[in-house]
């Protein structure tokens, strides 16, 4: 049996997917989830072959949920997201279904997935989907990280600064710091450039947290944050800082 999970915060939307799936007797619905948290748990528990995923959901959206999974399963997005926004990752997801979708359209999406599944091909890279999303205009309002078994949602305004740490990025807030396996370049691109600035190869700073800028040796400066931390500023970082602060 093929294992599938439906993740959507609207019961009727899940009912519809279930009904459309009833013809496909080889697919078993292992779980129905109300939100991303339930989705994460169910994915860990059942290791599904395929998930139907809504994008706009409580607390963490569909993309943010996927980010937290090391090896995400194949995904068919079901969303009322407007076409313009979703075109950005047209080529990367198995498929996406724009609500309301027809049975024919649904079957086509499944067919597309079956071809990939039978060829044992990996679904189109989800990392690519995520990249595509980050290139679209959807701006980051929060960052979702995993800490042990719990999930932490960090509003971007709470971030003091980001620090490069090997293959991870360390996210510093007043409540502590968390690791996320992304690159500095990724965050530099996703965060609002009028609020965050990369002052150094290894540091991105929340501009509203800056309290003082002092010279330090020649060609370099040091930033003092409201929280007391000191952040080095490179020569190019200084140029960017001047641009934003002036």
């Amino acid at each position, binding site marked *: 049996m093929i294992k599938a999970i439906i993740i959507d*915060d*609207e*019961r*009727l*939307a899940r*009912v*519809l997917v279930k*009904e459309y799936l009833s013809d496909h007797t080889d697919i078993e619905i292992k779980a129905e989830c*109300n*939100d991303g*948290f339930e989705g994460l748990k169910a994915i860990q528990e059942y290791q599904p072959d395929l998930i139907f995923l809504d994008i*706009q*959901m*409580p*607390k963490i959206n569909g993309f943010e949920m996927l980010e937290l999974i090391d090896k995400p399963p194949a995904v068919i997005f079901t969303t*009322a*997201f*407007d076409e313009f926004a979703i075109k950005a990752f047209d080529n990367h997801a198995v498929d996406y279904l*724009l*609500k*309301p*979708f027809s049975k024919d359209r649904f079957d086509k999406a499944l067919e597309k997935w079956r071809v990939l599944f039978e060829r044992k091909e990996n679904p189109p890279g989800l990392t690519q989907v995520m990249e595509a999303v980050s290139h679209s205009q959807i701006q980051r*309002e*929060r960052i979702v990280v995993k800490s042990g078994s719990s999930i932490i*949602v*960090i*509003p971007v*305004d*709470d971030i003091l600064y980001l620090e490069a740490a090997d293959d991870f990025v360390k996210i510093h807030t007043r409540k502590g710091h968390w690791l996320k396996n992304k690159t500095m370049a990724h965050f530099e691109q996703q965060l609002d450039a009028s609020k965050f600035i990369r002052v150094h190869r290894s540091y991105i700073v929340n501009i509203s947290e800056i309290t003082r800028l002092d010279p330090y040796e020649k060609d370099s400066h040091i930033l003092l944050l409201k929280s007391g931390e000191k952040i080095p500023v490179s020569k190019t970082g200084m140029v960017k800082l001047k641009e934003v602060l002036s």
Partner: protein
Amino acid sequence: MTFPFLSIFKNNRFPSWIPAVWLLWTGLHTWVATEMGYNLRVAAIESLTYNLLLAFAAVLLINILKYYTPGKGRYINLIALTMAISFIWYVSSRSILYALFNNETVSENFWGNEYTILIPIAFLILGCVALVFVLMGTMEDRELQIHQKADAEKLAREAELFRLQQQLQPHFLFNSLNSISALVGTDPVLARKMIQQLSEFLRGTLKKDDQQQIPLQEELRQLSLYLDIEKIRFGHRLQTEIKISESAIDSLIPALLLQPIVENAIKFGLYDTTGDVFIQIHANKENNQLHITVSNPFDAETASPTRGTGFGLASVQRRLYLLFGRNDILQTMAKDNQFITTIIIPQHD
């Protein structure tokens, strides 16, 4: 068909007292001439010649000015032009008089004796005409500009209001249609009911004039259609409470104002928490002002109150500004995991 040279006499722009003044002036001229010893017939012909040509010169001058307006500070050009026309006027008048009287009675030579008086007088009169015309033109231009600006602003405002109204979230519409699609399979009766509710809601948003104020009661009817649909979509997760005081029920409110505020509250509540969402809508009337509060739960841990509350309220804020010229009608506050939106709408009665 038209005679552009005389077009200044049309459009009521030609004051009717001018011919009277002209007649008076011509009479005066005749009288002065008789006083100076000319017989009445000669004086009258002379005066008529001068003044008919002077009127013609004035019309000519105005026509020139219609196509040539001296720029700011270029009034020297205007003076030169007036002077030249005065001179031409005098030469033409004298030529006609010279021919008519064959140099007998009017004066001894072609130039006559009066040019020292007549040319300056003509210059003054024509100068006044030119000045009045130019000033009137400037004033008209300015008035036109003010009108155009006001028109443009009005159009822009209407267009903007229209756009703001159109920003009914397509999400809502598509998700509702998806719910109906699901209900068709499981509960056709409810599906039909939801189609009817959705249609009624859409009709309500279409027919409203955005600048129109409607009684709160009517606005609430539209709002309850919206809430019923959302409740079918989100099921038990969404609960609402509407409390309206007796005095507030007839108060006036801009049409379709509450729905986006409540929509924002629902979205904020539904997407910021995973539990049940209780939306409270309260209204009462105080000091001739309609107070409405809409509150929704949110998670203070993950939603910073400093963050904007999404597009919904920004457009409501803008709309209220366009309608009332004030920025303080809508206010928001966060308290104990409750996000509260308040609007205070002045009542006129």
